[in-house]
């Protein structure tokens, strides 16, 4: 291992989201600007002022898991396992017994098993239950997906979970990248999962007044960077990628989707909800420095792009500060306009979209864009996907609490076999 660490590549992609339950339909829907936002179906949302979310449609757990196994799996762990299965299948990876200690799992989640916990609390407070189900803890804990995935694949290496709200899975993938780069693991399944569409979660977000109210027209509720944007739409889902040390991937003839070459992490250290320009800007600079990629080599930015009035103005300013003149040329889009804000999963879902965009030379659009905001005056790829060759791309994640993580991926430079 050189002083600068080892090269790390992405050899598996898995996604389970409102806009697609596997990567091909997911990406096709994104480039066709099809939204996954609908009226909430997991419970009756009638009492809510915001009754829409980006839910995974027509989901039946017993299609995927044995009943006995399901007893121990909250919805967020089910989604994580399904995305991990796709990541493993797409990678063609077979892990030999002696390689297991070098195989890790790092999964982020903002809310953990909130559905299980909420129904348990309902039983305690509303129904006077004097005991809760003994599976409550193993289902609710944030590390449940990490543990369940590591058991499913016999991954015995460094494994943990991250929780940094909307940046959870970007931090997870970044940590996994460094585990491999600096020699502590050779393969890591990394990503995030969150399923926060519950009555209490919706009520909590409603009162922050950051949700878009699009009950009449759910599909166009989320309009990032557009002058008439109203906020974000709650989402759910999971995204998981297989990261692998490059030489190992090459030796086994793996299909390499992209190289992951940078991670920038910063903390605003200013305000618990209000984003700064400085923190995210430093995170982008750090990721470019690590990857030794010049700002003008970045051809696509998958924005944090929540669609709140404040985020989109701040993020635009951040991009201008880091990229200068190139800010006007780089393609920027918010795929949250379609798959919603899947909280701790969103960074991973967006990295899957970013990697597929890079691989195919197609930038997914920002859907539902209607008219320019003078304070958001860059190229947000409005409504129509753009075909263009992409050399490198970043995926931004800026969390509530001011914790930022930016990931950098690039097309693998062809080198002699």
């Amino acid at each position, binding site marked *: 291992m050189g002083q600068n660490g080892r090269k790390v590549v992405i050899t598996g992609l898995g996604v389970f989201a409102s806009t697609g339950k596997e990567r091909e339909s997911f990406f096709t829907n994104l480039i066709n600007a099809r939204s996954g936002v609908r009226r909430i179906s997991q419970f009756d949302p009638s009492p809510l002022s915001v009754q829409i979310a980006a839910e995974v449609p027509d989901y039946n757990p017993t299609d995927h898991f*044995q*009943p*006995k196994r399901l*007893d121990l799996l909250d919805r967020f762990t089910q989604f994580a396992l399904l995305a991990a299965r796709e990541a493993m299948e797409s990678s063609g990876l077979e892990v030999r017994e002696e390689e297991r200690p070098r195989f890790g799992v790092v999964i982020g989640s903002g809310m953990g098993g909130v559905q299980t916990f909420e129904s348990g609390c309902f039983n305690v407070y509303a129904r006077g239950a*004097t*005991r809760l*189900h*003994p*599976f409550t803890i*193993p289902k609710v804990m944030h590390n449940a997906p990490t543990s369940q995935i590591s058991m499913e694949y016999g991954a015995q290496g460094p494994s943990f979970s991250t929780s940094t709200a909307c940046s959870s899975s970007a931090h997870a993938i970044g940590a996994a990248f460094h585990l491999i780069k600096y020699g502590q693991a050779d393969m890591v399944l990394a990503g995030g999962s969150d399923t926060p569409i519950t009555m209490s979660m919706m009520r909590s977000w409603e009162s922050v007044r950051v949700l878009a109210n699009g009950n009449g027209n759910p599909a166009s509720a989320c309009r990032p960077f557009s002058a008439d944007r109203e906020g974000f739409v709650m989402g759910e889902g999971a995204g998981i990628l297989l990261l692998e040390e490059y030489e190992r991937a090459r030796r086994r003839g793996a299909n390499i989707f992209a190289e992951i070459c940078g991670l920038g992490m910063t903390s605003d250290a200013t305000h618990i909800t209000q984003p700064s320009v400085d923190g995210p800007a430093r995170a982008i600079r750090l990721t470019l420095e690590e990857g030794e990629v010049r700002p003008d080599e970045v051809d696509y930015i998958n924005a944090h792009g929540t669609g709140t009035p404040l985020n989109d103005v701040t993020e635009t300013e951040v991009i201008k500060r880091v990229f200068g003149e190139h800010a006007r040329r780089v393609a920027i889009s918010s795929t949250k306009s379609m798959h919603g804000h899947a909280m701790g999963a969103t960074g991973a879902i967006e990295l899957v979209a970013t990697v597929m965009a890079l691989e195919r030379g197609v930038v997914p659009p920002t859907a539902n864009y209607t008219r320019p905001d003078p304070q958001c005056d860059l190229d947000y790829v409005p409504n129509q996907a753009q075909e263009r060759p992409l050399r490198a791309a970043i995926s931004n994640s800026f969390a509530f609490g001011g914790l930022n993580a930016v990931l950098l991926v690039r097309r693998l430079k062809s080198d002699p076999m």
Partner: protein
Amino acid sequence: MDVAAKVVEVITREQHLPPGTVTLNSTFSELGIDSLEGVNILFALEEEFKIDIPDAVAQNMKSVTQVVDGLTRVLEGKDISDLVAIAKGSTPAASH
């Protein structure tokens, strides 16, 4: 109430086993019931019978017969001091 039949029914249901697998002579270990599944069965029995199973009784429930015996004693309010004595020094059902 047929306590034994109810116990067999609860264990069968909670373990997702085919009917007929659980008999009065089955031990938890024969049925492949681990420590976490054991506490799940206790929970289900407490719900089913609307009772609290004291830890001392619970720790001596490692077979269907022991479950039926322990439950019967709790349901009938019998003395469990012998089980309390046995339980001393033993390990809890679930670790961590």
